[in-house]
């Protein structure tokens, strides 16, 4: 029997709603896929698109951004900013050949442990069906790393 592929999903969960939803899912002993690795951020609006790309680049098979429902963000409209970024990011990821299911934005309030659990289950299933992303090896071919470049000012203009 071959082992089924277990995708790695990096989750960015907002402190005030979705992280609490995950907490609740835990204390309520809800069974759901263990594939999402949660990272707590203060607000879904804190999620820089660089975080998403970096996760994909460094080996994640999918990225979930989870925040409060629109209208319920603790910073008023952080999640609406997140939604704007997400919609534009999706358009760009399509051009880069990243399947739509791999990057998702979901809303889950602090009381919706069950909803978050369901969304994680659903996304895990979808990403599992797509198979591993393995960007570094499969797309770039490995050994061709990105370099972070330091910046230093040069002499003033003469």
């Amino acid at each position, binding site marked *: 029997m071959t082992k089924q592929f277990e995708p790695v999903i990096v989750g960015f969960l907002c402190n005030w709603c979705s992280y609490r939803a995950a907490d609740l899912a835990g204390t309520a002993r809800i069974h759901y896929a263990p594939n999402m690795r949660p990272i707590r951020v203060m607000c879904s609006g804190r999620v820089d698109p660089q975080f998403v790309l970096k996760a994909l680049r460094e080996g994640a098979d999918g990225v979930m951004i989870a925040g409060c429902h629109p209208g319920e963000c603790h910073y008023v409209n952080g999640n609406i900013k997140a939604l704007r*970024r997400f919609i534009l990011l999706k358009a760009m990821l*399509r051009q880069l050949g990243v399947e739509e299911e791999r990057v998702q934005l979901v809303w889950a309030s602090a009381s919706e442990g069950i909803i978050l659990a369901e969304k994680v289950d659903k996304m895990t299933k979808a990403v599992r069906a797509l198979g591993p992303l393995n*960007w570094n090896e499969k797309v770039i*071919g490995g050994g061709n790393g990105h370099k972070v470049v*330091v*910046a230093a*000012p040069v002499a003033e203009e003469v």
Partner: protein
Amino acid sequence: MSEKPKLAMYWGAACGGCEISVLNIHEHILTVDEIFDIAFFPCIADFKVHHVESYDDGYIDVCLFNGAIRNSENEEMAHLLRKKSKVLVAFGSCAYEGCIPALSNLTSKEATFNTVYGENASLDNPDGIVPLTEVDVAEGTLTLPEFYHTVKSLDQVVDVDYYLPGCPPESHQIWAVLQVVVAGLLEGAPLPPAGSVVGVTNVAVCEECDRVKNEKNIEKFYRPYQIIPDPEQCLLEQGIVCMGLATNGGCGALCPQVGMGCRGCYGPLPGVEDQGAKMLSAVASVIGAGEVGMEEAELEEKIQAVVDTIADPAGTFYRFSMAHSMLQRAKVNGSNGKGEA
């Protein structure tokens, strides 16, 4: 008389504009000629690769390498010049971060060949002749360099000492950098730390642009040909994608000053790894659609409608930095060879 320091300049996948930008430092070019001996510079002097091969390692003091790594010849020369040079400068946007050639990372080698040798409207190639790396003719075997699937920046194949951004770099910046290097070589003045981006101001292009800036709230984006911009107001506020806010300064904001949105050729600001992602983030935050209190479906629909007016987000935000971006290239699926899933 002591020996003059040796200068080289070579091109990978480039347009030739970088060479012109060096010659464009005006009368300073005479000073360059006075200070340096040219060791290799195919654009202006007759040198062959075997000359370079015959040099001792580190013989060339400063090598300005412009152009991206598109094929095996580019890569071979990058390795050779790295070995023969004390200071290797990634000169211009192509060598620094891939630039226009690296936009082909959004598609496949096959699709690029198809466009160039098959489908171009101006093409006359009825037999579908495509260059091969090897072909046998009566006189023997002819070879051509191998065309790579992915365009790389110079630092993705060899170690680079300095990066001088720009498409092409501005002449006053080139001269400023050359002076620093010369002071280092001749007078032992300290050089910037290896790996530095030089010839930049390390503030956003917006800082160098005098257009009037107010709050940004954009409901529709325009391509340059669709709008005659107001001469005073910030271009982004008018719905023209201007990369100024995600781009390192040093150029003096030349493009926005004349009504063309910043293309982003000076690359990311310090501390930013992925210029395109940062630009995406900035553009998304000024989208003037979707408010607190709207229904979820309506919210998405309104925002989507604005996003749909941005043509080619990947090609726009990564116009110059595709090779250096986090994902570096598109994942190519399907038979069309394009990045579409």
